[in-house]
C-alpha cells in the first residue's frame, strides 16, 4: 500500500512579503493517517490550502491524486478551522451537511428522497442522524465539528483534510471525534491529513507525523520526528522534547 497520493517537490510559498514555506519536499501515501503539527502561524493551514488549490506555490510542484491541485475537487474533503455557527442561523444540520453534496451547483435543491437518504447516511456515520433537523446554532461544539466532517465526507473523497478539528473540544469529545475519524478512514480507505496543536491524542492512531516550523518541514514516524535533535534542526534553535507519563511535551517552541 505504498502508492503516493500527494507529492510536494521543492515547494516554496511566499505570501506578500512573508515566506511561509521554503523548499518543502514530501510524499504521502494512499491510506496514511498523518498528523500535521507545528507552532501557530507556521503554515499548517496554508499547506492544506495549497493541496486544495486555493493557493498556488511560488515555486516547485504539487501533485495530488496525479494532478495539479484545482479548486472544486470532489475527491478531497475539507473541514476548515472550526468557527462557531451563529446561534440563530436558520439552517438545520441536514442543510449544512447537504452543502457538501451540491452546494456549489447552480439553482435550488429540489426535494429529492435519494438526496435526503444520502445526507442521512453521512449524518449516521458521524453518529448524528438523530440531530438531522436540529438548527445548527443549537448544536454543541463537538456536534458541529462532527457535522462539518460529515459534510466533507459526502462526496466520498479519497483524501480528507481537517484543520484543527479538536481545538475547541474537551477531552471526551475530542476522543469521540478521533475514534470516529479513525473508524471512517479505515472503512473507506481514505488518506487523512489532520492539523492539530496537540499530538498526544493522535499518536496511537496515526501512521506518520508532519512537523511544520520555521518555513521547513520534517515527516516521519513520531518517534523519529519529534525528538530534541530533529526539532532543534527544524527550528534552528534549541528545542527539547520531553516524554512524561506517556505524553510528549515540546519545550522552547514559541518564536
Amino acid at each position, binding site marked *: 500500500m505504498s502508492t503516493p497520493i500527494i507529492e510536494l517537490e521543492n515547494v516554496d510559498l511566499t505570501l506578500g512579503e512573508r515566506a511561509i514555506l521554503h523548499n518543502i519536499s514530501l510524499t504521502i501515501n494512499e491510506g496514511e493517517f498523518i498528523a500535521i503539527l507545528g507552532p501557530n502561524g507556521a503554515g499548517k493551514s496554508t499547506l492544506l490550502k495549497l493541496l*486544495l488549490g*486555493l493557493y498556488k506555490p511560488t515555486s516547485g510542484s504539487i501533485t495530488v491524486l496525479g494532478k495539479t491541485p484545482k479548486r472544486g475537487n470532489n475527491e*478531497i474533503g*475539507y473541514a476548515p478551522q472550526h468557527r462557531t455557527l451563529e446561534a*440563530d442561523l436558520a439552517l438545520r444540520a441536514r442543510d449544512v451537511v447537504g*452543502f457538501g453534496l451540491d*452546494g456549489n451547483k*447552480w439553482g435550488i435543491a429540489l426535494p429529492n428522497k435519494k438526496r435526503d437518504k444520502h445526507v442521512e447516511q453521512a449524518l449516521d456515520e458521524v453518529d448524528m442522524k*438523530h440531530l438531522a433537523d436540529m*438548527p445548527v446554532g443549537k448544536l454543541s461544539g463537538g456536534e458541529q465539528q462532527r457535522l462539518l466532517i460529515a459534510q466533507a465526507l459526502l462526496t466520498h473523497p479519497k483524501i480528507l483534510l481537517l484543520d484543527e478539528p479538536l481545538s475547541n473540544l474537551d477531552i471526551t469529545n475530542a476522543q469521540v471525534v478521533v475514534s470516529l475519524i479513525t473508524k471512517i478512514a479505515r472503512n473507506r480507505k481514505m488518506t487523512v491529513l489532520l492539523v492539530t496543536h496537540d499530538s498526544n491524542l493522535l499518536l496511537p492512531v496515526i501512521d506518520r507525523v508532519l512537523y511544520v516550523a520555521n518555513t521547513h518541514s520534517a515527516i516521519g514516524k513520531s518517534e523519529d520526528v519529534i525528538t530534541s535533535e530533529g526539532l532543534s534542526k527544524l527550528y534552528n534553535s534549541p528545542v527539547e522534547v520531553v516524554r512524561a507519563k506517556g505524553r510528549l511535551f515540546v519545550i522552547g517552541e514559541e518564536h
Partner: protein
Amino acid sequence: MIELLQHQFIQYAFLSGTIIAIVSAIIGYFVVLRAQAFAGHALSHIGFAGATGAALIGVSSLTGTFIFTILAALGMGFLGKRIQGRDVEIGMILSFALGLGILFLKLYTTNANEAVGILFGSILSVTSYDLLLSIISACVSLLLLLIMFRPLLFASTDPEVAEARGVPVQLLSIIFMVLLALTVTEAILVVGVLLVFALLVAPAATAQHIAKRPLTTIVLSVALGLAFTWGGLFLALFLHGPVSFFIAGLASIIYLLAVPFYHTISPHLYKPLPHADRENKFTVEI
C-alpha cells in the same frame, strides 16, 4: 373602500408595493445572513445623491438612484472582504453622499418637499414608468437569485469550504451587491431613503428568529413583508396618514416584539433527544 381602489395611483401603489415587498423580503434574507445590513443602509444614502442629482439634470430620480447605487455596489463588491467591519469608512462615504444630495437638492429647488418625498417615500406618486422599472428590476433580481440560490447560500454560510468546493465566492458577492442596489432603489420608492430597513431587513430578521430552515424562512419573510406593506397602505388610506410611517411602524414593532418573545420560548422548542453521546447542554424543563 372599494372606490378608493378605482383610482389608478392607488392601484399602482399596491402593485409596486407588492412587487417590491416580495423582492426586498427575499434579498433581505441574504442581507441578514451575510450581516450586510449596514451596507444596504449605506447604499440607500448613496441613492439619495443619485435621486437628487438626477432631478437636477432633469432625469427621472429613479433612474439616477439605480445608477448611483449600482456603481457604489460594484465598488463595494470589488473591495470585498476589506469592507467587513469598515463602519467608519462606510459611514464617511454615506455621509458624503448625503452631503452631495443636499447640494443637488439646494441647486435644484428651494422646495423642501422633494427632499421629504425621497427621504420618506413617495409610493402614492408612483408613475407608470416607475412601475415598469420595478417590474423589470424585480424579474431580473428574482431570476438571478433563483439561479444563484444554492451557491450563494453556501458561500454566505461557509465561504471557506464553499471556495474549496469550487464556488466563485467573490463573483457571487459582487453580483449580490448589485442585486442589493436594485432592491434598495426600489425600496426607496416605497418607504424612502431613511426607512429602507423596514422593508429590507425587518421581515427577514423577524422570520429568521421564528423559522429554522431556508425555505420556510424566506416564505415567512415574504409573507411578513407583504403584510407590512399592505397593512401600511390600508392604514394610511383609512387614517389619512403618511404611508411610510405605517409600513415602517408595523415592521419595526413586530420585529421588536417577536425577538424577545422567541428568545424566551425557543429553548423549549427543541427538546434534546436521549442519546448516550449527547452532552447535556440543552436540557430544559418544560
